[in-house]
């Protein structure tokens, strides 16, 4: 273990380390937000399939999730490249060692992801819409795939911060790392995806007014968002409870208070507006979106504070300094700005199409896939 500077994350470390910590934290937070749409969305559809299995039809919200999930999964995977890159700079040896120790178990995440991706497309077909039982199985398959992937990442993370377990695990030949923290931690991450999904749905509702009957807030979104905010915090407490005091120690320091405060403000603020709002307005989207962003960043910061406290972080600081000497940062910043601008330009280009009323078969159909699209 190492001495953590008594200052707020990411401060107190050499500038190179801070740079990589900031980049990792921010890109991871973006990845997590996009992932939330797909993961929570898969459970939303599964729930609708179970609750309405006799009718077989999804609600307009379910249709919207179904329509957009493949796109969001594509974005999630792409956004995930950056944190996977920066984690290799920050925690190379521990990340690689955990990957290697979990071996086939870790690698099996990739075919499972491919299967889930294709199931998302299959879910959009008219063929499937006409077969409620198959549709239910497909929805269950998608959700289970995402749970498996989330479980794998959670185990990998916990294994990476416990180097004392590596040699024994390797000698045993096991590909599973058992820790009491795994289940509540996994539950926290899964449940905490729902508020982000509900916000994305609000945002889509304001963009695509023609797709909704009114600007009324779907009461189910409110219920899901509020229930998941409560549920996630319960699992957070359980996770903290099952951790050893030493492992928990990095999170109970005064220097972490600003991030806990930010987290609490984000949770309470979002809950307040979910509770009191009845109409979907741009202001509401902006407010809840702001709290969601604050939540994403504060959770990411707390997660890293905890990881740093549990690993031999000071030993890898020279590697960060060496990495920062490598050229290309300026070019990265230039292309980041340029391509962010181009992405916004692309969105602007199609925005007027999105906001136009749609008379296509998309909404008139029972399950929504436009003709000719997979």
């Amino acid at each position, binding site marked *: 273990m190492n001495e953590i500077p008594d200052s707020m994350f990411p401060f107190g470390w050499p500038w190179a380390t801070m740079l990589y910590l900031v980049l990792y934290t921010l890109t991871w937070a973006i990845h997590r937000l996009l992932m939330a749409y797909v993961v929570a969305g898969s459970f939303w559809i599964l729930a609708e399939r179970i609750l309405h299995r006799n009718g077989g039809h999804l609600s307009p919200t379910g249709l919207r999730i179904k329509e957009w999930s493949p796109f969001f999964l594509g974005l999630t995977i*792409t956004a995930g490249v*950056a944190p996977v890159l920066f984690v290799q700079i920050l925690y*190379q040896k521990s990340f690689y060692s955990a990957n*290697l120790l979990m071996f086939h178990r870790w690698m099996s995440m990739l075919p499972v992801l491919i299967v889930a991706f294709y199931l998302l497309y299959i879910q959009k077909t008219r063929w499937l819409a006409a077969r409620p039982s198959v549709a239910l199985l497909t929805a269950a398959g998608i959700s289970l795939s995402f749970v498996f992937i989330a479980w794998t990442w959670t185990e990998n993370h916990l294994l990476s911060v416990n180097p004392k377990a*590596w040699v024994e695990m390797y000698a045993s030949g096991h590909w599973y790392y058992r820790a009491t923290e795994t289940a509540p931690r996994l539950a926290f991450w899964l449940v905490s995806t729902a508020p982000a999904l509900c916000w994305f749905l609000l945002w889509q509702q304001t963009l695509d007014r023609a797709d909704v009957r009114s600007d009324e807030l779907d009461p189910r979104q409110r219920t899901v968002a509020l229930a998941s905010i409560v549920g996630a915090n319960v699992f957070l407490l359980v996770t903290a409870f099952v951790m050893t005091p030493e492992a928990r120690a990095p999170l109970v320091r005064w220097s972490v208070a600003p991030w806990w405060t930010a987290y609490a403000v984000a949770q309470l603020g979002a809950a307040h507006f979910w509770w009191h709002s009845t109409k979907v307005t741009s202001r509401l989207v902006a407010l809840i979106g702001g709290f969601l962003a604050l939540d994403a960043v504060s959770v990411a910061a707390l997660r890293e504070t905890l990881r740093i406290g549990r690993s031999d972080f000071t030993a890898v600081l020279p590697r960060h300094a060496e990495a920062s000497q490598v050229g290309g940062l300026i070019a990265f910043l230039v292309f980041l700005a340029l391509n962010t601008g181009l992405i916004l330009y692309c969105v602007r*280009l*199609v925005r007027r*199409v999105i906001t136009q009323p749609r008379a296509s078969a998309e909404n008139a159909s029972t399950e929504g896939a436009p003709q000719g*699209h997979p």
Partner: protein
Amino acid sequence: MGDQLPYYPMHDFGPLMKGLVIGSLGILHVFLAQFAIGGGFLICLLQRRAMQGKSPLAREFIQKFFSVLVLVSFVLGAVTGVAMWFTTIQISPRTIGVMVHEFHWIWAIEWTFFSLEVTSGYLFYKYSSRLDDRSALTLAGLYALAAWSSLFWINGILSWQLTPGGWLDGHNVWSGFFNASFWPSLLFRTITALTIAGLSACILVNAIPGYSREDRESLVHDCSSLLAPMAAMPLLGLWYFAVIPADSREWVMGGSMPMTMFLNLAVVFSGLIGGYALVGLIRQKLFINGATATLLLALAFMATGAGEFVREGVRKPFSIREYLYANSVRVDEVAYLRREGSVTHDPYPVAEPKGGFPTDQLRHGAGVFRFQCSVCHTVDGTNGLLPLVQTWSNTQLRLNISQLQRTKPFMPPFAGNAKDVEALVQWINWNRSDAPPKWGISQDAAILEEIQGYLDEAGVVPGSNDPTDAQVAEVRS
């Protein structure tokens, strides 16, 4: 140095050679990624022809083509890209570690282009039919630019592995990126991408129901125009082979039969596709049916596979030329490991066979095999060590392993001490004696001295570099 030399919990892949696993995945990923890159250019071309009124079916075909591209490339292409990273970690964590360390900003730049590619691609796929022509062309153009740019950036890293050039002196990232094989490799891959997309489109033209023969001919002619740049491939190939290291060139010019054979296959397959495309499709405007297009695409896949095999193979014995050997030992670490032993600080125990190893020396030998050999060799499966040394006597084993870089110039120097060599020799003998429950320990000082003599004589420099007398003397001292 001992503290800095990282040991990882490496696994045995059984009869599968690790290189085959990463190679197969790499070929699949490259093929899919190049399909996506060429597909962007094809869509721009068709969109332009539609806007000019030269191809009335182009708009409709673009939608169908892009649906396939999204299903194949955006899913499999994206996930196999991530899989490449994770698989490389499984096979050679040190290699990917160095690559990420040295080029993480380049990878980060590539990521910004991935983001643009996915966003513009999906928006085009979803909304192009509702956009005006100019906006649709802009989206398609941005998609094509972003897809090709991702090739531009990753090409610099991949070509650096073979021709790091000026990077070796001072580790300047741009010297490494714009290396000697960067441009021929980039142009060659760009043409390959166009070819793959053109052939894939020809298959799709034939697979879509409802088109008349004239419709198909018109679309095939449009799509096959992407194959025209193949005429430049021979020149680019020659350029590439002119700039790669001389010993790498020798492997493919007969020095290594598998390399030579795979190169010839790549040339023949590409020649067949190029000949058919240039003479038949473009000059004589022949029609191409689905079966023929599929056959040509299969040839393109095999040519890509053979080409990637050669590209990977000619780096031997390095994974990063002149810097890191394929077995993850840095060139400047060999001398240290000669003194210290290769697995002295390896904390991970080797997997015990049924009944366990009869001696610690055999356990030691298994560790040496895992550390130094297992990335390219299995025990007795693909490229198995036991079949390769089947007829060698003990003296040959000791000599040839100690002087690996002289035994075969595409092997790295042995990165261990005399005890490591003898332990490996004993482990090989034990294995080829069907792993009996009892086995003696070989600790004759004369044998170890003999091995040390072999090691000193070979020195620590790669086989491709002729060791000078001074270097040999330095090692001996």
